[in-house]
């Protein structure tokens, strides 16, 4: 390239930077969501029409370890006997007891969660916080509705909530200081579990051991938000391992930075660095993991969040994954990384086997087994 062309490239890079760094202050979230809500009121939701078609796709995505919400599909089902049991003991009803999340189930059974009866009522609609638990890895809150009018009984509570905001000791939680809200269904359509985590493993601050959480939930059709103060404290019973073991494969350095075992969650923090220090990553090279105990039992994924450390001039991907707890302390934990195989055409789609499941390929070079010292 001659000097002139090189200069031109430099100038073009400059123009591109101007475009990228155009100073804008724009907040379209509420306006867009409101506009969507009001347009939805006037036409039937496409969501319901297409739910049938959606299922295969959702299931396909769910298989990936990067995918979290398999529980939504699986746990919507509660047996009639169970539902009947629930009705018999309304005062002791636990939203946690009826999830497919073994951790929350254990929290309820072992008395680790705090039972609450905090409620807010507007226009005949009552929202109730039934319990909360925080184990240092995730905060989970059970909520239920009591709608005397019964107008909304057909719709899931989850669909009725149009906005959720949290304040932690008065400070708003947003994408800079928490993972965003994950939801899990529970015993029926009148209840839902809200969950989130801090970003302490991704450069953020940890939540305090004890804090006051303010939940502000907006229900479609009711202008006043439902505000409730929830006292939260860490159950503080966990094993924290920082193995910092790395393996290398091709351009990837894969590190297990931290494992936290609590009675309700197995939390695993991984870091994937690119050895050539490049900052552009093809999503098709994304590495997912499966987690096993020494007897080959696989832990089910609950949810996870991650981010790239682009601010530090690299693109290390740090991921926090939260999985079901181990029933007893395992002798060893094995992490099996894998990748999906993609078709050349259509570009970026998963290769599938004869059952329509995505084909995965384990990367044995990155596999890590961590023995656990039972004295710990």
């Amino acid at each position, binding site marked *: 390239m001659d000097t002139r062309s090189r200069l031109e490239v430099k100038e073009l890079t400059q123009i591109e930077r101007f475009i*990228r760094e155009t100073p804008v202050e724009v907040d379209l979230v509420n306006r867009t*969501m409101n506009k*969507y809500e009001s347009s939805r009121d006037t036409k039937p939701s496409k969501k319901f029409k297409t739910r049938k078609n959606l299922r295969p796709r959702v299931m396909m995505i769910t298989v990936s370890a990067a995918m979290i919400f398999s529980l939504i599909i699986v746990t919507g089902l509660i047996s009639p006997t169970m539902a009947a049991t629930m009705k018999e003991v309304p005062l002791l009803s636990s939203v946690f007891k009826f999830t497919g999340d073994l951790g929350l189930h254990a929290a309820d059974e072992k008395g680790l969660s705090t039972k609450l009866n905090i409620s807010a009522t507007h226009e005949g609609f009552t929202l109730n916080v039934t319990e909360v638990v925080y184990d240092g890895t995730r905060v989970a809150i059970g909520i239920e509705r009591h709608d005397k009018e019964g107008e909304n009984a057909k719709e899931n509570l989850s669909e009725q909530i149009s906005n959720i905001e949290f304040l932690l000791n008065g400070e708003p939680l947003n994408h800079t200081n928490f993972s965003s809200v994950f939801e899990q269904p529970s015993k029926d359509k009148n209840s839902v579990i809200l969950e989130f985590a801090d970003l302490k493993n991704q450069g953020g601050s940890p939540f305090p051991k004890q804090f006051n959480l303010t939940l502000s939930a907006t229900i479609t059709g009711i202008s006043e938000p439902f505000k409730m103060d929830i006292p939260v404290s860490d159950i503080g019973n966990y094993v924290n391992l920082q193995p910092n073991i790395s393996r290398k494969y091709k351009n990837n350095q894969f590190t297990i930075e931290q494992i936290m075992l609590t009675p309700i969650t197995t939390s695993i923090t991984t870091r994937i660095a690119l050895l050539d220090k490049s900052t552009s990553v093809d999503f098709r090279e994304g590495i997912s993991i499966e987690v096993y105990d020494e007897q080959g039992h696989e832990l089910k994924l609950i949810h996870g969040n991650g981010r790239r450390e682009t601010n530090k001039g690299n693109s290390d991907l740090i991921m926090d994954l939260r999985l079901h707890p181990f029933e007893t302390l395992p002798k060893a934990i094995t992490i099996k990384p894998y990748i999906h195989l993609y078709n050349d055409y259509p570009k970026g789609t998963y290769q599938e086997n004869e059952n329509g499941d995505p084909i995965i390929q384990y990367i044995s070079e990155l596999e890590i087994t961590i023995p656990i010292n039972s004295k710990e």
Partner: protein
Amino acid sequence: MTALNQSKERADIDIQSIVEQVQSGNTRAYAEIIRCFQKQIYIYCYYMLGTKEEAEDASQDIFIKGLENIHNFSYTVSLSAWLYKIAHHHCIDVIKAKNRGYKFWLNMKQEQVKQTQAPIPEYDEMVHRLLENLHVDEKRILLLRSIEEYSFDEIAAIMDMKAATVRKKYERLRKKLMKENMLGGDIYGHSFKIGG
């Protein structure tokens, strides 16, 4: 922090899990997607359409289209690439609707800026002027390169073109811009001072 950094900070898994939530019926989770991509989509619309008001309206409509069609989204492309596809079709519709009036209006606006010396940062005006001489495909390529630093392969996937074609067009737009730069050297010279 640049819009780019903010967007890349949200790693794939985060976005994927939010998408999955929305696809499972939790439309509220979509707010996080808007929060995450609004600046980039807004900047894209701003330079495609020309004014802040239009960019705001268009961005909202694009995000609503995204939400309405999220059940069609699968990881054949990244979510941002998918949003840019929607953004492109939407902007083209808007441009078509106001086609003739557009350049006239933009010229009017620039005249007005000169006369009233409104406190609009001068370099977006400079960018608008540079872009005015580009064909719509060239504009898209430049904006996608600029805002997201997409590779030619990624841009090719968004624009349904071959990567080689994108590269050729990029080369052509570079030459066009440099020619423009020589004609309007003062505008461009000024921009360097701002950029530091």
